């Protein structure tokens, strides 16, 4: 008799616990998003909800208003890290997300607090195309307007991810807490989030069946290089226009978006193996991932 009541109370308790470290983030016109105090002075939100070159203000649960600066972004994961002087608020109870399984009950929390509930529906939004579990979870719950950037919490109120409706057109997603922590670590160490950079422009291409058979590939598409920036890491490694990139560091590249997923900030400075087809022949090229030059 009591177990369903206990579960209901646990869910309400989880929302209450998570709500204590939430901010309303005013980084775009009209609709504020949600931000989570991840650690002292650093607030995490969804990158698409904070417009570039805009003054960002935060509203705390007690109504106080703070100003914030964007310390770094990862547009691939749709995460922005903001810096603000926060006092008297507990940081989120960030939890190890490695125990998450498909089917686990989770809640998305927005400022207010407002809540919606559902389950983890996939451990990788890319539909299992990659071998490793991805940084982005798919969740079967509704992200209501203003929820983006808010926490995904388990039944105990521990933060296991950051929700965003901006990462996929069709799916509700959450960036794993561990991936978010890696980004905040970059900010703590270097004051910013480096952007990994190869220096290629690409277009998707359909792989002919005989080429797929010859290269032993299961993917139906890849990307073709249509531009190589001069003096870029790709140019230094000898990539040329017309090369078809099929995988990087063992991860399949079926569309340009897959490049963004592979080129995480941690890759900067690393040498990665780029598998290409050049003139129909397979080749492997080592490219040292660089850092994207500043704009302008």
């Amino acid at each position: 008799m009591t177990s369903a009541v206990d579960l209901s109370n646990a869910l309400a308790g989880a929302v209450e616990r998570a709500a204590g470290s939430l901010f309303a983030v005013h980084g775009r016109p009209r609709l504020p998003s949600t931000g989570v105090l991840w650690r002292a002075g650093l607030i995490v939100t969804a990158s698409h909800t904070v417009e570039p070159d805009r003054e960002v203000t935060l509203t705390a649960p007690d109504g106080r208003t703070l100003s914030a600066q964007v310390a770094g972004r990862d547009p691939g994961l749709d995460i922005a890290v903001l810096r603000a002087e926060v006092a008297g608020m507990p940081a989120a109870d960030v939890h190890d997300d490695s125990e998450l399984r498909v089917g686990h009950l989770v809640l998305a929390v927005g400022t207010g607090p407002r809540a919606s509930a559902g389950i983890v529906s996939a451990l990788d939004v890319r539909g299992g195309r990659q071998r490793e579990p991805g940084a982005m979870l798919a969740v079967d719950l509704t992200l209501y307007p203003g929820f983006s950037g808010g926490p995904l919490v388990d039944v105990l109120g521990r933060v296991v991810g950051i929700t965003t409706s901006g990462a996929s057109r069709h799916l509700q997603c959450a960036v794993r807490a561990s991936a978010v922590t890696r980004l905040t670590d970059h900010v703590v160490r270097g004051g910013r989030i480096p952007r990994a950079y190869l220096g290629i422009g690409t277009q998707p291409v359909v792989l002919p069946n005989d080429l797929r058979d010859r290269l032993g590939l299961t993917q139906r598409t890849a990307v073709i290089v249509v531009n190589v920036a001069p003096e870029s890491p790709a140019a230094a490694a000898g990539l040329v226009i017309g090369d078809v990139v099929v995988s990087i560091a063992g991860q399949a590249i079926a569309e340009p978006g897959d490049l963004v997923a592979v080129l995480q900030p941690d890759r900067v400075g690393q040498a990665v193996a780029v598998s290409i087809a050049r003139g129909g022949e397979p080749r492997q090229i080592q490219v040292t991932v660089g850092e994207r030059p500043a704009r302008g």
Partner: protein
Amino acid sequence: MSGLLAADAPAHLAWIADRLREMTVEVSGPGGGGAGVLWAPDLVVTNAHVARAPRVRVGFADDRQVEASLIASDRRADLALLRVPPVEIAPAASTDSDTLRVGALVVAVGHPLGLRRTLTAGVVHGFPPSRSGSRWIQADLRLAPGNSGGPLADTTGRVVGINTMIAGGLALAIPINDVRRFVAARAASVT
């Protein structure tokens, strides 16, 4: 997690569903229709936009159909009270809707798109202000036309609200504390 989802939780929810389905009625009449809650052996509460005529039909879970008379209606609060011939079905138990918290599990019973006594489940989403100066119970829970007037209940099976509207994909229910005040004022004046 395993402690929270003990094996008897699903059975308990099924028991609650049975109870709620028993006390949820169908209301049909000229210009309206939907669900209602058996409040007392001879009283049914529903939305004003569901019961739009002085005489409407009320259907019970055992397929009995009776004629009901509209004894009170408040368009602004969107609440209506119907008198039915006394039945031997246990009426709804209600609880203090002010104690409801965001994130709490809730269930709704109604006749969405004519599917009689359908159960949907979700969580409390928030408590936005309503036009009448009170607050709605807003729930992340699927409703459809035909749910109006039906119960929103907590995990103890007690009714916490009357499902009234869908806005932005969210369910809006009138808190049962408001409903209780409405019934107390109207039922006293007609009996």
